[in-house]
């Protein structure tokens, strides 16, 4: 690593890694925070797998994960129930948080997260529509409608509301306030429609829908988690590569254009990735509130960077959801959906953020 120097002194804010013609800007603090977070993530994953439903000995869990089938009950519990649920938590947390980081950077507004912008509410509307219309009967949703219909509807409706927000907020450019206001509008619209739909269905599908809307990782199996995990990995990779342009757009539209950025194209690409990420996250875990809002800002504070770093945000989000699910599943005698825990932590944070943001404006 070489530090830019002048007159024997050092320009601390410019750190570069150079090798021949290659040169990469790095942030030592960002790298070390990222490293620590990876360790924390592994630990959180271990705790999560070890503490679902009935407690199992950590050693048995490890053995089952490594392919020991001697105790078939333990093996089944770990590989077919706990492992996919754990991966689901990681995927949902990382996707929502990365989506939040991108949205907040593009909108230059820490309040602009996919949940505020209506993407997650739209996804819920899609999921609930399928639940209520195709569900019926006390058995609730089953068969193809459950394995394919609901995730697809949630994904499609999430993307659709993201597109609607973008188109409605667009007027020769994207203004941050207009984006947040239009997002809140679409969010309210989707929430009202969802509530209305709930009154149409019978009690059991309504109850199922409500659980889903709270954000839950119950009963997530490989059939859902595996394809979503692959899509999530690809999207996250794209999101991280987007990061370099995002910093430029955070300098404002005029400056970014002046520096040769195709701002319109960058924004559209970044927001598309964000909407897809948020939709994937919501499909996996339901509309987990506050993960997308809080994780990027936590990542930004931890790394001391100017805009929320996408990769670190994703790590924070994954850890956040893993811990929230572990706590909500085990802390009380009744297992709560993970969304309860993220809301309990997130709501005060949102209020704090709004108050602070307002104070800065006045």
């Amino acid at each position, binding site marked *: 690593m070489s530090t*830019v120097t*002048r*007159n024997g002194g050092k*320009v*601390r*804010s*410019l750190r*570069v890694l*150079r090798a021949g*013609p*290659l*040169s*990469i*800007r790095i942030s030592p603090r960002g790298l070390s925070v990222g490293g620590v977070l990876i360790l924390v993530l592994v630990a959180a994953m271990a705790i999560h797998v070890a503490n679902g439903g009935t407690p199992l000995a950590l050693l048995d869990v490890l053995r089952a994960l490594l392919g020991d089938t001697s105790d078939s009950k333990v093996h089944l519990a770990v590989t077919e129930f706990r492992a996919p649920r754990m991966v689901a938590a990681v995927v949902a947390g990382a996707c929502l948080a990365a989506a939040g980081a991108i949205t907040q950077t593009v909108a*230059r507004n820490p309040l602009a997260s996919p949940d505020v912008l209506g993407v997650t509410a739209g996804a819920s509307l899609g999921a609930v529509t399928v639940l209520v219309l195709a569900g019926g009967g006390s058995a609730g949703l089953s068969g193809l409608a459950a394995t394919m219909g609901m995730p697809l509807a949630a994904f499609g409706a999430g993307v659709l509301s993201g597109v609607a927000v973008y188109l409605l907020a667009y*007027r*020769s450019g994207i203004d941050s306030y207009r984006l947040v206001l239009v997002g809140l509008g679409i969010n309210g619209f989707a929430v009202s429609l969802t509530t209305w739909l709930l009154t149409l269905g019978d009690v059991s599908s309504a109850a199922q829908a409500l659980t889903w809307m709270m954000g839950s990782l119950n009963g997530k199996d490989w059939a859902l988690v595996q394809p979503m995990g692959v899509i999530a990995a690809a999207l996250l990779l794209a999101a991280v*590569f987007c990061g*370099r342009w995002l*910093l*430029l757009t*955070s*300098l*404002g*539209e*005029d*400056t970014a*254009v*002046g*520096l*040769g*950025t*195709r701002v319109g194209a960058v924004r559209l690409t970044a927001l598309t990735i964000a909407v897809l990420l948020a939709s994937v996250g919501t499909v996996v875990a339901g509309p987990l509130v506050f993960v997308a809002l809080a994780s990027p800002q936590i990542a930004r504070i931890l790394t*001391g*960077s*100017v*805009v929320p770093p996408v990769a670190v945000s994703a790590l924070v989000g994954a850890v956040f959801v893993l811990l929230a699910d572990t706590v909500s599943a085990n802390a009380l005698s009744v297992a709560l959906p993970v969304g309860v825990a993220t809301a309990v932590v997130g709501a005060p944070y949102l209020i704090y953020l709004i108050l602070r943001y307002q104070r800065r404006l006045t």
Partner: protein
Amino acid sequence: MSAPSTGGRLRADALTLGYDGPDIVRELSLTVPDAAITAVIGPNGCGKSTLLRGLGRLLAPRSGAVTLDGEPLAKLSTRHVATQLSVLPQTPAAPSGLTVADLVSRGRHPRQKWYQQFSVSDEAVVLDALAATDSLGLADKPLEDLSGGQRQRAWISMTLAQETDILLLDEPTTYLDLAHQVEVLELVRRLNRDRGRTVVMVLHDISLAARYSDHMVAMKDGRIVAQGTPAEVVTPELLLEIFGLAAQVVQEPTAGRPHVIPLGAAV
């Protein structure tokens, strides 16, 4: 009122610009003289900032074109344009926490690739740009901790790091006290004299504009009313015509440039 004879790389041809409403700049043609400082003056709302935004391709023409070396800007890649001309928008905003050096380093973006984010020569240019505005000592300070003048110098450093022949500055002296205004304008003059940069700047203060420019463009209602040397443009008749201001124009003693003594708004 003669158009400058020196050929211009940057030209506006019958340029019409506007935002959502009516046209702000109407069928305006202008040849920016190379290696000279051009000051655009005019009353509020006359379209001078809009013209600068048009010249810097921050605003697409409704009709007409801005050409760089004969090619319409719209046909050139924005990245290529960014290596030829840099724009300093009016009151630019940076995210909080951004340091001066980090901001200035972004000026290298048009010449960087993803695997070449900050080469040795990038580093030299950034340090040079910081030194040119006397901002080296501020390199690691966040922008929000700086005074208005220091912040403006940091932004100018960023446009310098772009290493472009043409600089477009939109009211670079806004919000600055007189000492800092002069400091920024002296810097602009040094860039022009020492490095041969072409500068177009929008200024409010006519006397300062006359003092620090080689060529002046006076605008009213989206059109150019007069252009030429400061002595040709800054006259009591013109001030009356474009600002509705009764004024005396005297020669200031240091460089013999015209200096405006306002008498009052003409009825």
